[in-house]
Structures are given as C-alpha cells and as structure tokens.
C-alpha cells in the first residue's frame, strides 16, 4: 500500500486502468473475488478453474480440461484472470478504491455539468455535435469508473444511482439488461449486497411493460436468486428478491415455480426463506383462484389449485417425519394447515375440518415420543409438534378451537412440561387460551 501517496494518483491510477482494461477486454467475466498476495504464486502454477469464492479458504485443484486463458501476466501480483474469473489482490483494494472513487467522482461531476449545459441550450444551435460526442465519452467514463468502484465497495449507493441516471436517459432495453450483468458481477463477490439486489428491481420496474420477454427475464431472475441462495445460505436479500418477483409473474409461472423447485426445497429443509418463498407462491394461487370467481375456467382451475395444496400438505408431512426437529418445516406446516382449513376444508363443508384436525393430532402424537436416550432433535420435534397444535388452536375460529382443545386434553401440557418447561410464553399462552375458552 502506498502510505506516502494518500490520494493515490500515481501508481494506483495505473492499477485502475489495468482493472478497467481487464473488464473491458473480457466482457464475459462473471465472477470476482479477492485474493491474498500469498495465494498468487499458487494460482499461477495452478491448472484448472477454481471458484474464486472458495479461493480464500482453500485452493481447489480442478481438472485440466478447460484451461484456456493464462494469468494476466505471470508476474502480476495485483490481478489474476482466467476462464472469465477475475481475482483482485487484497493489497490492491485500498489504492484501487481511492483511484476509482476519485475517477468516478470527477467524471460524474463533469457529466452533470454537461447535462445541465445541454438542458439550457435546447433549441439553440451551436456546438451541439461536439457536445454530443463529449457527452458520449463522459457517459462511457462514468459507467466504467462506477463499475470498477462497485467491484470494490458493493453498496456505494451513489455509484449505483449514477448508473441509473445515465441509463434512464437512454431508454434502451439492452442498456437496462446490461445493468443486470453488472449487478450479477457484484453479487458474485457480495451475495448480500442490498444495493445490487435493489438495482435489479429498479431494472425490472423500468422495463416491465416495455419488453416482450419479461417472463423470461423473471425466470432468469428467479434462477439467479436460487443459484446465489445455494452458495450463500439463508440469504434474506436473495429470497426477498425472489418473493418480490412473484407479483410480476403470471399465474402459470407461479405454479411452475412451485412444482419445479419442490425437490430443491426438500434438500434444504433448514432454509426458512426457501419455505417462505413457497408460502408466497401458494398465497398467490389463493388470490388467483377463489377470489376471482368471475373467471369462466374457475371451476377446473380451483380443482387444480386444490390438488396442489393437497400435494404440498402430504409432502410437508413426509419431510417432517424424515428430518427430525426442523423448525422451518413445522412453521411451514402451520401456514399450509391453517390456509387449508380456512380456504378449502371449511368451504367444502361436512366433516372436512374435523377429519383434517384429527389427522394433524395424529401427526402430533406420532412426533412426541422421545426415545429414552434423549436425543436433542427428538425433544425439538416434540416441542414443535406441541406448539404446532397450540398455534392451530389459537388461529382457528373459536368453535373449532374449543373442540380441538377438548380432543387434545392434557396431552399438550404433558409434552411441554417434559421438553420445555422453561418457556414462559408458551405457558402464558396456554393458560390464556384455557381462560378464554372455558
């Protein structure tokens, strides 16, 4: 690091130039990571394409088959690039940041000046042509420097904003789509970057209604969120983005998503966000079927949605029994069971609600036997089963609640006493319920 050069104009500006050149010369770079200087030597020897995200932890040796490019320069200790992956030395970060920030700020300032000048000169002749060409150059500079800056500081809002400003003046769909690429690149090193995710939503909002392939873009967005969620567990920002997309999806896509990603969810049973995503999708099917009764096809459609919910219920039960003591699975069941009672069983009439509740009580009982050698997971399973029934009782309408409470008798208290006697809120809620109902 150049301590003697606090503003970093001399050597660092060439660092910035090299970084921008690398990005420019390989537009397919799709992953950025930071590498400790001690890892450079190892990387230069290495054949194959390691994943940058795993690089800081361990150097993975992959197969030699796809080796194409070589390191930027065998003696380069600042950048490393191969197979469209870019590594930046951790030692280069500070001087690079200073240079990128300076270059970004000054080019954006000039850009603004010129824009204002343009605004004032509308309708006048003069040197419009030369102005236009210098504007194009400045736009290019602003986009180049802001991208470099965002690869070093992912939530630098002013840099994201200036990109929005430049792009929205152009009204060109392709430029909007390019912004998705920049955001993906930033997310490759910072999957939780709030600004990078929000930039994507801005793009979707801007092009919705203006482009013909929105559905395909939404599909890609959903897949990207999934890919990132795979690597970065319980990533609220990624899943939140995915939930946000749902309101733009046509109904067919909502159902597709539910079916297509069921297996993935089954492999990630501790990921509450993933189950919440299903909650969001399932809620959409309710809004689309029952409440739009003027639809001609609504009868057939309702049957299809009903079937989907039934499958979800039995799938959830299988998971609960297979993976013992998983909170996310039980919370998900609270949701589907409650909606099933309210939107399906109750509407079907007869003894539908009753028999459904009987089934759930059976599930509760089957999950409350803790083996003698007391496994923690079984204790959790028993607690979740008991609180599941309590939750349903509290959420059902009053008559159903009283009936269920009578059926279950002292069983709930017994289980809670055994596995979590210290949870004050549960006892309070329990006695409250009794007091309310008796």
């Amino acid at each position: 690091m150049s301590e003697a050069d606090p503003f970093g104009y001399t050597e660092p500006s060439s660092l910035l130039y090299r970084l921008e050149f690398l990005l420019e010369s390989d537009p397919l770079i799709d992953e950025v990571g930071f590498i400790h200087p001690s890892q450079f030597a190892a990387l230069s020897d290495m054949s194959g394409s390691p994943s940058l995200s795993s690089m800081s932890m361990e150097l993975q040796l992959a197969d030699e088959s796809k080796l194409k490019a070589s390191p930027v320069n065998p003696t380069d200790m600042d950048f490393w690039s191969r197979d469209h992956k870019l590594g930046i030395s951790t030692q280069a970060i500070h001087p690079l940041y200073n240079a990128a920030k300076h270059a970004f700020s000054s080019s954006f300032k000039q850009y603004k000046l010129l824009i204002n000048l343009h605004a004032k000169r509308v309708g006048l002749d003069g040197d419009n042509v030369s102005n236009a060409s210098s504007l194009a150059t400045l736009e290019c500079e602003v986009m180049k420097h802001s991208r470099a800056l965002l690869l070093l500081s992912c939530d630098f809002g002013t840099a994201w904003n200036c990109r929005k400003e430049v792009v929205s003046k152009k009204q060109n769909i392709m430029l909007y789509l390019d912004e998705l690429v920049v955001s993906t690149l930033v997310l490759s090193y910072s999957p939780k970057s709030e600004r990078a995710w929000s930039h994507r939503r801005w793009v979707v909002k801007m092009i919705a209604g203006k482009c013909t392939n929105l559905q395909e873009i939404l599909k890609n967005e959903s897949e990207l969120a999934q890919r990132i969620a795979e690597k970065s567990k319980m990533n609220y920002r990624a899943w939140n983005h995915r939930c946000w997309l749902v309101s733009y999806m046509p109904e067919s896509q909502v159902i597709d998503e539910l079916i297509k990603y069921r297996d993935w969810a089954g492999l990630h049973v501790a990921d509450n966000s993933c189950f919440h995503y299903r909650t969001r999708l399932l809620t959409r099917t309710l809004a689309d079927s029952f409440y739009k009764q003027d639809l001609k096809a609504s009868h057939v459609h309702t049957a299809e949605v009903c079937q989907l919910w039934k499958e979800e219920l039995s799938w959830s039960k299988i998971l609960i029994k297979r993976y013992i003591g998983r909170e996310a699975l039980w919370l998900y069941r609270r949701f589907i069971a409650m909606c099933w009672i309210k939107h399906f069983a109750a509407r079907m009439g007869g003894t539908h609600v009753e028999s459904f509740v009987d089934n759930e009580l059976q599930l509760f009982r089957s999950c409350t036997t803790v083996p003698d050698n007391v496994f923690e997971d079984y204790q959790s399973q028993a607690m979740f089963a008991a609180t599941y029934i309590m939750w349903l009782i509290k959420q059902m309408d009053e008559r159903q609640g009283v009936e269920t409470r009578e059926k279950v008798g002292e069983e709930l208290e017994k289980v809670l006493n055994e596995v979590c006697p210290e949870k004050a809120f549960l006892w309070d809620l329990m006695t409250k319920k009794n007091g309310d109902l008796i």
Partner: protein
Amino acid sequence: MGDLAAEKHAKYILLVEKRKDDVESVLMEHLRINGAYWGLTTLDILGKLEAVEQERVVSWVMSCQHESGGFGGSEGHDPHVLYTLSAIQILALFDKIDVLDIDKVSSYIASLQNEDGSFSGDIWGEIDTRFSYVAICSLALLHRLDRINVEKAVKYIISCKNLDGGFGCTPGAESHAGQIFCCIGALAITGSLHYVDKDLLGWWLCERQVKSGGLNGRPEKLPDVCYSWWVLSSLIMIDRVHWIDKEKLVKFILDCQDTENGGISDRPDDAVDVFHTYFGVAGLSLLEYPGLKAIDPAYALPVDVVNRIFLR
C-alpha cells in the same frame, strides 16, 4: 461471565472514530453517518458523550446534507432516508436539532411517500417498511408528522403483516426481526399498535430465543447480538418482554464482549464492531442493566433525549 466492560467499550468506540483512514473504514464510508449514530448513542448510554467534540461532529453531520434536504452517508454521497434519520438522531443527542432547516428536511422525507402510503428510500424508488419507519421516526422527532398521510402509511405497514404475526419489507415478504422492529416502531410512534395481534407476534418473537439465551432474527438462524435490540424493543413495545428469559440473554450479550480491547461482537469469540457494540449495549439498557442510561425502544435514542424533544 464478567460484568459489562463499560470503560473499555467507550474507549473502543473513540478509537474506531480515530482510525477512519483504515481500509475497513474507508470501504464503509458510504454509511459513515450510520456508524456515527451507533457509536455516539453507545457513548451516551454509557454516560461518556462528553468525550466527543460536539462542534466538530455537528458541522461534519451538516456537511453530509444534500441540496434536496436529505442527508448522504458521508460528504458528497447521494441522500437517502436511512442516513437522514441518523443525522437527525445525532443532532438530537447533542440537542442541536435547531441547526436544521426543519421544513426543508421534512419536505425531502414527505416527498418520498407513495400513493399507497409506502415510502421510497430515495428518488430511485426502492420501497421497504424500513423506510416507512425511518420517515415516520424522523418526522416525529422534527414535530412534522402532519407533512405525510399517516393513515395511509399505517395501512401500508399493516399490509406487510404475515400470517405468522411478523412483518417483512414489502407485502408477502418473509418476517424478519429487523423489519418487525421497524413496523412496530412506526406503529408505536403513530399510536397504531391496536392493529397488531400482540400474542401472535409475541409468540413469533419469543421463538427467536435459542438455547444459549441469545436471540436470532429468523427461524433456524444462529443467535446474534444485534437481534437483542430488534426482538427486545419489539417485545417491549407490545408489552410481552416478560415472556423471554432475560437473565440468559444478559449473559449471552456479556459473553460477546472483548473484555481486553473493548467492543461487542455478534456471537461469542467473533471479531467486534461498532454496530454490534451499539446493539449489545442498547439491548442491555432495555434489560435494565445497572449503570446504563435507559433507551427508548421506538426512537432508539436515550429516554432523556426523547423527553427533551417531546416534553419541552
């Protein structure tokens, strides 16, 4: 478990302020004003705010103001409501809200309310219930809640309520303790807590307490000191704080201290930072830990500061 290393935490905060040219600090400059609010509020709760040069801080805060009236995270950065609230809170700590052009700041915030009552974070239109809280809290501190449509703002927040009793950032988004704090805080400030099913929400919040005594922010997540603040303040606002094991939570927070160099981390034995130091100390204050100033759960400012604003 030791006691709270109050002196050391104060020293740590003051030291971080001095190291603002370190690379870690430089890379975070876009939210420096949030950091200043966390650090200064911690110092105030610890009774050590006099150690700070007030004049210098106030003029730096004012240098972050944009011509639109909003504040950026540092000088020269674009304005956003998140930074605007921090600016107002810092000025409130020093009893200096009167240096603001209050109409200008409130116009900026009010201009970000949308037709459906929601708030955008800035002119680029991202919507989030956090921004609703920030806008409502800011305007309340400025005595300018009349500049927005409070009824619609409340209605939008309620539309983000989930079946589990919690709240997310937009309608249908997953419940998250941080978002719940924002929604409950905004409802508390506007006197709208009657829209909340307190037992149901309290239930969800209490399920955040894990075996170690710490609180997590969502199901299946590890406990983290910052949720001590978000979960606890929400429980206090809905009057259900007696439902959790406070003693165990105090122990969890104290276990996350660096007793040698000061500072608090997210979990025991992790690296400390200002963010978690603030939430740890603020959490202990809510738990009535001895020797700390009381903090207001909705405004996230010391109670005496809030009283100075509203009882004046």
